[in-house]
């Protein structure tokens, strides 16, 4: 919190923007694809950091908003010929509205109960949509290629998706930073540390938690809309993939919850490791084992995550790395 001698946010945004521009500058498609995923992971990890890192509520099933944003947007594009940008926003709003509706009751739960409830919600949503014909049921929905004509072809659509994902990631990071440095963020962290004390100093925990939850649902919804727009196909198992949900949790913990840089570092590291391991199919499963091992090592020995560890070890860095 408080005094930052270096302009952390602008510096961070510039670095991210440069990284984003790289594949476009050298016209490297596969790099662009990788970075598309990485910026998506940054979005997911940073969003979950708001409700988990700052507020202390572990949302295991957070991916539900990714799926909802994806489905709503896809539906609008498919059935109403909505332009992607419009559909993405118009899809994120009901997703966040749902976050508001479920947030109020489930944020009353503590710790493990809350985590379990979020799993229940994701799974309930997944299995419900599995049966929901207007959304394609178990088969899901898919574009026919002509949909991309509006954007000047599939390639342009992919570029548009990339640009939007980068912007969403930057917006998420900025929001995370602003929250962290604000009075609202301080109230969240007080709630995380001791909710009863927070109440006694004048914070309304119920309201603060719900606001945090709703904000943290908005960006994954946009990310979902973008991801599935680019893919051209959406199905329940992929949209509400619990594994992906937990992965964003892992990335957040890896890099360090409660900081702005943590989720970014965690996402980048995780994705790098995954790319490193995915070289052969045999290794792909082994990758899962290594991911687990890495997570265990971090949880047991580097509890504050990499960024957290750095900040503790070298307190002088605290002002420079938020």
């Amino acid at each position: 919190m408080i005094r930052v001698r270096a302009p952390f946010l602008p510096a961070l945004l510039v670095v991210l923007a440069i990284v984003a521009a790289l594949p476009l500058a050298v016209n490297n498609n596969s790099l662009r694809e990788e970075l598309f995923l990485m910026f998506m992971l940054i979005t997911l990890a940073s969003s979950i950091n708001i409700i988990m890192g700052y507020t202390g509520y572990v949302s295991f099933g957070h991916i539900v908003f990714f799926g909802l944003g994806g489905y709503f947007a896809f539906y609008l594009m498919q059935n109403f010929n909505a332009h992607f940008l419009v559909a993405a926003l118009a899809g994120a709003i009901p997703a966040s509205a749902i976050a508001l509706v479920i947030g109020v009751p489930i944020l009353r739960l503590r710790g493990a109960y809350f985590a379990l409830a979020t799993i229940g919600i994701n799974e309930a949503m997944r299995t419900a949509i599995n049966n929901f014909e207007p959304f394609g049921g178990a088969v899901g929905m898919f574009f026919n290629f002509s949909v991309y004509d509006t954007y000047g072809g599939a390639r342009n659509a992919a570029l548009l998706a990339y640009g939007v994902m980068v912007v969403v990631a930057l917006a998420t990071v900025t929001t995370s930073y602003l929250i962290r440095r604000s009075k609202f963020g301080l109230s969240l962290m007080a709630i995380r540390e001791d909710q009863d004390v927070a109440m006694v100093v004048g914070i309304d925990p119920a309201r603060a938690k719900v606001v945090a939850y709703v904000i943290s649902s908005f960006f994954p919804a946009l990310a979902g809309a973008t991801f599935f727009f680019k893919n051209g196909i959406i199905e329940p198992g992929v949209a509400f993939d619990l594994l992906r949900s937990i992965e964003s949790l892992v990335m957040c913990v890896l890099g360090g919850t409660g900081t702005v840089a943590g989720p970014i570092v965690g996402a980048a590291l995780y994705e790098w490791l995954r790319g490193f391991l995915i070289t052969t199919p045999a290794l792909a499963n082994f990758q899962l084992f290594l991911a687990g091992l890495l997570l265990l090592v971090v949880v047991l020995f580097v509890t504050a995550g990499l960024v957290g560890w750095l900040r503790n070890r070298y307190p002088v860095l605290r002002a420079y790395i938020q």
Partner: protein
Amino acid sequence: MILQVDAVTVRFGGLVACDAATFAVEEGEILGLIGPNGAGKTTLFNAINGVHRPRSGRIVFRREEITGLRPFQVARRGVARAYQVVRPLNDLSVIANVTVGACFGRENLSLRAARTVAEEVLASLGLADKAEVAAGKLNVAQKKRLELGRALAARPALLLADEVLAGLNPQEVSAMLAVFRSLRERGVTVIMIEHLMHAVMNVCDRVVVLDYGKKIAEGSPQVVSSDPKVVEAYLGDPKAAQRFLEEAT
């Protein structure tokens, strides 16, 4: 009269923790709330604070009824609380802890203004050099000062101080009492739960005594300390109380 506690009863299932407790607190005074352990003093604080809802009775603060309001609502009306068993926000820095106190109270300050207030409070309590340390890393005496600091930073009209002197050495006690006196000068009302009798005698304007949830005495420190009922409550044996008083005079 800044606070009126009117026949407040708090029950936990079958246990009556506060039994029709009634007293008033004048603005700007330091009121001592004493009594043996288990007398219901902390429960009474919890009732005033909004942590427990009284089964019956009323609590009126500054002419507004606050019975049953949620803790944050009471806090926003200018009541601050320092806990007996300290509850620092462990992973936040000391200055952040105190800023939290300053931010969300009656004045609803901005982060920057709150931080300025926090710095002043830390300086007045001798914790300024520990400002960036994580609160969890302080020793107990420092945590107690932090606890008080967080309450003071809210610049409350009424401070509920629950055994803030426990575990402090004589110098620290004197320093804390000086803080309380300066609060009185600024017009802040304090109710302090204390076991340290010389502190109570020294700094309190009036004293209320509880035993088994009931008020058994009220008055100036001198009057109350020589009240046989009070002595008996602490010592348990009326004859011993009698002997003690005879020896004292």
